[in-house]
């Protein structure tokens, strides 16, 4: 070795080392690492099944609806709004943790409240999107007849267009790969379940903050740990968004 490292040399010069965490936070990091593999397994499964199909629905066509906009064709507009809401809730979460570091109880309460609102809004958006997909109806050539069906885990109306066949002015399609619905509802549902759990945790943190529990303990580390989870759920959404809406 040409460079000599003196004894006691400090490798980390950026303030508090990120590796010097409490066991509680370490546990949360380990859980998130583990959960990464759960989502990773789902997304990789989705990928392998998707590439094994000759045809896959075009997300610009599947996700083009927006509440109260009728049949306007707005590809990915609604999901962009959902994503924006969730990412903003991460910003408010950062602010809650920041106020926690300053031991500002009311600041923590305020920003936790906004974060909860963001989570609830996101879930509501997801509920609308699911409802729209399941109850929506598209003309599909099924058993030799044009039928109007929605998108479920066993039925997919977003197949290839049947050339030269229209019904009331709409292009008629064949049925698409059923795996689409299974993976879409399965994975966004699993993510939604995580968001829902996160909202419950945030509500718990808000109640504890109001009760003064963290003031008594002397730190807001629990808020920080729940924050880690919340950011993780956001990050997972970025991948879900990528895999289902963009690709």
């Amino acid at each position, binding site marked *: 070795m040409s460079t000599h490292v003196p004894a006691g040399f400090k490798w980390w010069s950026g303030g508090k080392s990120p590796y010097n965490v409490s066991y*509680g936070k370490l546990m949360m990091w380990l859980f998130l690492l583990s959960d990464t593999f759960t989502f990773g*397994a789902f997304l990789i499964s989705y990928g392998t*099944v998707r590439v094994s199909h000759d045809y896959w629905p075009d997300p610009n066509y599947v996700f083009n609806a927006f509440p109260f906009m009728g049949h306007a064709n707005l590809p990915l507009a609604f999901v962009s709004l959902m994503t924006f809401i969730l990412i903003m809730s991460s910003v408010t979460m950062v602010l809650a943790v920041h106020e926690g570091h300053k031991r500002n109880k009311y600041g923590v309460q305020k920003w936790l409240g906004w974060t909860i609102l963001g989570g609830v809004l996101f879930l509501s958006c997801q509920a609308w999107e699911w409802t729209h997909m399941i109850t929506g109806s598209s003309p599909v050539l099924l058993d030799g007849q044009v039928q109007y069906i929605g998108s479920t885990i066993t039925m997919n109306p977003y197949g290839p267009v049947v050339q030269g066949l229209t019904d009331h002015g709409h292009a008629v399609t064949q049925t698409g790969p059923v795996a689409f619905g*299974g993976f879409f509802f*399965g994975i966004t549902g*699993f993510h939604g379940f995580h968001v829902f759990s996160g909202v419950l945790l945030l509500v718990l943190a808000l109640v504890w903050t109001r009760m003064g529990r963290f003031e008594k303990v002397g730190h807001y580390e629990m808020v920080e740990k729940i924050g880690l989870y919340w950011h993780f759920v956001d990050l997972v959404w970025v991948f879900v968004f990528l895999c289902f809406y963009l690709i």
Partner: protein
Amino acid sequence: MSNEAVIQHGAGTHEVHGDHHEGHHHHETFITKYVFSQDHKMIAKQFLITGIIWALIGGAMSVLFRIQLGYPEATLPWLEDIFGHWAKDGRITPEFYYALGTMHGTILVFFVLTAGLTGTFANLLIPFQVGARDMASPFMNMLSYWFFVLSSVIMLSSLFVQTGPASGGWTVYPPLSALGDATQGSKIGMDLWLISMAMFVVSSLLGGVNYISTILNLRTKGMTMTRMPLTVWAILFTALLGLLSFPVLLSGFILLLFDRHLGTSFYLSDIVLAGNILPNEGGSAILYQHLFWFLGHPEVYIIILPTMGLVSEVMSVNARKPVFGYMAMIASMFAIALLAFLVWAHHMFVTGMNPFLGSVFVLLTLLIAVPSAIKVFNWLTTLWRGNLHLTPAMMFCIGFVSMFISGGLTGIWLGNSTLDLHLHDTYFVIGHFHIVMGVSAFMGMFAGIYHWFPKMYGRYMNNTLGYIHFWITMVCAYVIFWPMHYEGFAGMPRRYYDYSNWESFKQFVELNKVISFAAILSFLVQILFVFNFFYSIFKGRKVTTKNPWKSNTLEWTTPINPGHGNWPGEIPEVYRWAYDYGKDGVDHIDQITPIGENESKEGH
């Protein structure tokens, strides 16, 4: 979460009571001490005893199907008396036979050799050997045990449902496992199996997160990572493997549950069942196998790594020598843990996988032979010219190494995809994995139990029974599994109900009787062990000294029956590694002895 409280509680009590038995604690009821205990030692005992109960159930199952395999023509009325229509006319029915095989695998792999093994020794040894009052979160630790109990209850209940437990093999491959109409065992028994395993994953996750955090964050002063005993290193790698592979299994099971009940097609495509064309399309049964084996392969290392750690420690103590190649042991465990994630598809060579991809997995699989061989040579060199104390624990260590070599060598055969085409799903595979991860792991676990029994219960196990246990287990294990390799070469497939119907396998009728006889004998001797275990808890010879094996590790600096909190007063500080045996002519120097002025510089 209540670690601070535990510390004060444990320490405070002992200032008053000194070295008394843990039963003298204040504020402890039967419920908090024996049932919902948050003391790592009690949780370890709970895991161990639950594991022993499961081992008896799983072992008894193997006795039943060995009766069928060894004596297929025999009619035993007592079987019908016990099992009713499952053993009509005194013969195990085919459905029962498959259920027995499936549950034997599930129980032994997950409930005994994962939860029973890691749950016991991680809980017992991590806080003791790193110098902590308890686990990072004693509460989560308790939850980990009770999720295991919940999982156990669900799995046990599946044995008693009308249509019987899961019977599609312990790997529960779809489409068989996904379609309730396919077999009896694919009905409610399969659901209970999946739900039980989901609970098991939760238990394993709660435990694993705790083990890693405790090892990384709660080591006592002076206990650097490279001063830790190899047991703790082994458990660290085991916990990491479980943390990263069990969630993938959970994902696979969730998709399987959806396929079973929601009509999705993750694993199903183009299936005709009882003359009906099923609507499922586009799924892939191979996808399940990938998800399963992404856990399934690391799982065998989850089973064997802790026993490698136990054996390294017990062997060093009983050879009165430092373990040979401490850093090499850590490095090879790291290599095994890493490679464990990159070899899963060697279970799938015959699924129609691309042969080129297969050859990549052959290469990665054979690479595991390198760290495994390093470990074997290190054990042999630890024994070499040692002052061997052949306690039952030490005998089992040596038995472990013997088994690991025998089973490991046949692994090199199976790892080659070209050979695997012939040997896949034959008795060669059964012989291989039972020796290398079944018997080996049990040997390591027994070594751990005999060695740490005095720390758990303040008494010794009976040595004579221990030696009988060892020799009969050792001989029977080889008599059972060695001939299976020959049967496998001859093409005898696994999981068949009655081989005497095949002209090719008639030559093995007598051999199968021998195997069955040895299997039954070895089961009986395990009952002897269980007797010894429970008898010694109450009547065993009492331990009279803190450090009966003259060992260096921290657990032997605690009182004979430590209370919750482990050390009365301060936690000791550590000055050296755990393997200063025979250094400078001194028999052993424990970790809490400061380095002397004239001490030589070997070790750490």
